[in-house]
């Protein structure tokens, strides 16, 4: 009797274990019934991000009643690590979000889109912002289509500027104006500028100043070119020579300049257009404003960046996935993104809706700055080992800002290590 009961318990445990294994497995397998399931994998930083994504997926679902669309999200910081794991285990979602900057390391997982693919998806490059196809391209192949376009701006804190008696950055301002404003605003323990640690944040001003980029169009590294080194050295000199910016505390402070700005410790910082509405309605309550990058001798070309969706190379239903891709980038979905003010849509006809979502008091300002900034953007060229380059540069940038190495030395050793 005892033995039978014990045997029964052991059997029940075994069955339970097997069942949990089965339940876990069926989630990953195909959809319910005979409708194919297309999984959309995207990053989401907050509940509002997730809700926005669900709304876009709902629009795509309406347009594609013959498939089931499932959304899966991860925070930005984890998204690429998870994507790497998914790629390695062959579990990549049929539609995966990708940021243009990171594309270089993940092209192996994405399907290269041909003209027929675009036709299946119902997408026409002419409907999108000029230069948009460069965002999701790498080494000549198109790996996806962007849903938003962005560029870098200089955000300023009007209250701090007025307190220091500094002028206000305006459209068409030059680097001399920038230096003057930063110097005037550095007073009473506050700094005129917050140094960037992220790749876009620190590279933008040197790119605008020098008119060159760290990488060439063919994907080769040229980060030690004399013009770029000179401009980058000027940039790090803002801390070491001019003293208008605070040295960065630690190599893990990726958002240093932006945090200094939102914390009211720095009057200006470089950040992307995606944060425009966030800064305008900032929690600290200071009067914020924005301006395009200052103009150097060769203009103020800033990088055009963006994120988009691509189809995975291992997708089992490529036709349906392409159609879902087209729906996610359709006029309705792009209108939704624009009117919710989340990001500046890549589809040209949806772009005016973005400005209508902004508060009346800021609308004209934002519109004029955006139009001016996007008029002079260039695609940001990257190398295949861009992720490695970034993870080398960021911890060393701290030493540069702290005056322990020079920008020239750091860029030269980056070129030596990654520029083959």
């Amino acid at each position, binding site marked *: 009797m005892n*033995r039978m009961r*014990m*045997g029964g318990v*052991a*059997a029940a*445990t*075994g069955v339970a*274990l097997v069942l949990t294994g089965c339940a876990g497995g069926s989630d990953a397998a195909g959809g319910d019934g005979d409708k194919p399931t297309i999984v959309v994998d995207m990053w989401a930083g907050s509940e509002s991000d997730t809700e926005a994504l669900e709304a876009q997926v709902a629009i795509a679902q309406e347009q594609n009643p013959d498939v089931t669309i499932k959304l899966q999200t991860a925070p930005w910081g984890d998204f690429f*690590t998870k994507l*790497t*794991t998914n*790629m*390695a285990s062959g579990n990549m979602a049929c539609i995966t979000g990708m940021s243009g900057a990171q594309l270089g*390391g*993940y092209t*192996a*997982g994405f399907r290269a889109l041909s003209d027929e693919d675009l036709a299946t998806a119902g997408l026409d490059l002419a409907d999108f912002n000029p230069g948009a196809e460069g965002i999701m391209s790498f080494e000549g192949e198109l790996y996806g289509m962007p849903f938003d376009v962005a560029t870098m701006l200089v955000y300023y804190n009007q209250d701090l500027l007025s307190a220091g008696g500094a002028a206000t950055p305006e459209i068409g301002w030059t680097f001399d104006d920038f230096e003057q404003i930063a110097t005037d605003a550095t007073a009473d323990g506050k700094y005129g500028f917050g140094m960037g640690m992220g790749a876009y944040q620190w590279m933008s001003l040197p790119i605008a100043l020098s008119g060159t980029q760290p990488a060439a169009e063919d994907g080769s590294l040229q980060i030690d070119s004399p013009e770029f080194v000179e401009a980058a050295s000027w940039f790090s000199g803002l801390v070491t020579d001019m003293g208008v910016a*605070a*040295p*960065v*505390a*630690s*190599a*893990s*402070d*990726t958002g240093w300049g932006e945090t200094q700005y939102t914390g009211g*410790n720095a009057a200006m910082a470089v950040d992307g257009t995606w944060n425009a509405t966030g800064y305008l309605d900032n929690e600290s309550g200071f009067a914020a404003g924005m301006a395009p990058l200052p103009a150097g001798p060769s203009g103020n070309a800033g990088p055009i960046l963006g994120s988009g969706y691509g189809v995975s190379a291992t997708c089992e239903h490529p036709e349906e996935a392409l159609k879902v891709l087209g729906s996610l980038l359709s006029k309705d979905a792009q209108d939704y993104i624009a009117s919710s003010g989340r990001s500046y849509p890549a589809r040209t006809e949806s772009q005016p809706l973005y400005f209508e979502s902004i508060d009346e008091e800021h609308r004209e300002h934002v519109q004029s700055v955006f139009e001016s900034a996007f008029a002079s953007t260039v695609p940001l060229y990257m190398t295949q080992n861009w*992720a*490695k380059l970034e*993870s080398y540069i*960021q*911890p*060393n940038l*701290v*030493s540069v*800002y*702290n005056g*322990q190495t020079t920008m020239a030395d750091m860029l030269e050793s980056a070129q030596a*290590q990654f520029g083959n």
Partner: protein
Amino acid sequence: MTTTTKRRGSLARVETRQALGFASPALVGLALFTIVPVGLSIVMSVFDWPTFGDRTFTGADNYAKLFTASPDFWPALRNSAVYTLLYVPLSVALSLVLAIGLGPRIRGRGALRVLFFIPVVVPMVANVLVWKMMLQPQGLFNGIAQGWFGVSLPNFLADPFWAMAMVVAMSVWQGLGYNMLIFSAALEQLPDSVLEAASIDGARGFRLVWSVMIPMISPAIFFATIMTMISSLQVFAQPQLLTGGGPGNATKPLVMFIWEQGFTFGDLGLAAAAAWILFAIIIAITGMQFAAQRKWVHYEH
């Protein structure tokens, strides 16, 4: 006689089967989540294994590459060694002092023990945030130094020497409570009769502690030292969050190097090879400690 043996044999067999049945979930878990991945990582370490793409067998190439061609591997080894050499003695010694100091006649020692243990249970991210705020040039330490003493402190986390010192300091502060509890438990088990006999014989204060108490709790000290050394060779969260491995690679220990190679750069074969090198180091050091224990650890028999 024969009947008893037969019954014992068949009972033993039935009991073995039942035992196996009960142990099978744990065994399956052990196999799936420990043995298979460990075996897979041994295989990975002798392959060129990118996360996506063709995998080719390369033999000991990964190991050779680590020691000769990887710019971050030797610094990672050095950082792990420095961190361990600084952290383990400090942590064990300070915890021991604390445990002895919080002796049986201190009032409120329960509350004090809880206070010391709180940093251990608080999530590492919270600890790091607070320390970062204190250490930055606009933070607490520099503020006090400049305000009260007129001295400007270095930018701790951006200085190659100070960054490591601060990572060790934060880790010691965080890990004190854990070892302190182990030593407190061991101290409470010391037989009063032995301590009384020693003090009657004239051993007081430091002599009592050094020659009587510490040898008697040496098994606990041995355990704490081994566990602390293993966990310090595997440290990841503190340098990752506090300094990001910077400045440069001044605070990038081996596990951070492995994570970066595997997940940021996608070279899983190289990461697996580095992980096995770490394993070998840990086993060697632990083996040496076990061999040395005969000299200084006194077990009650």
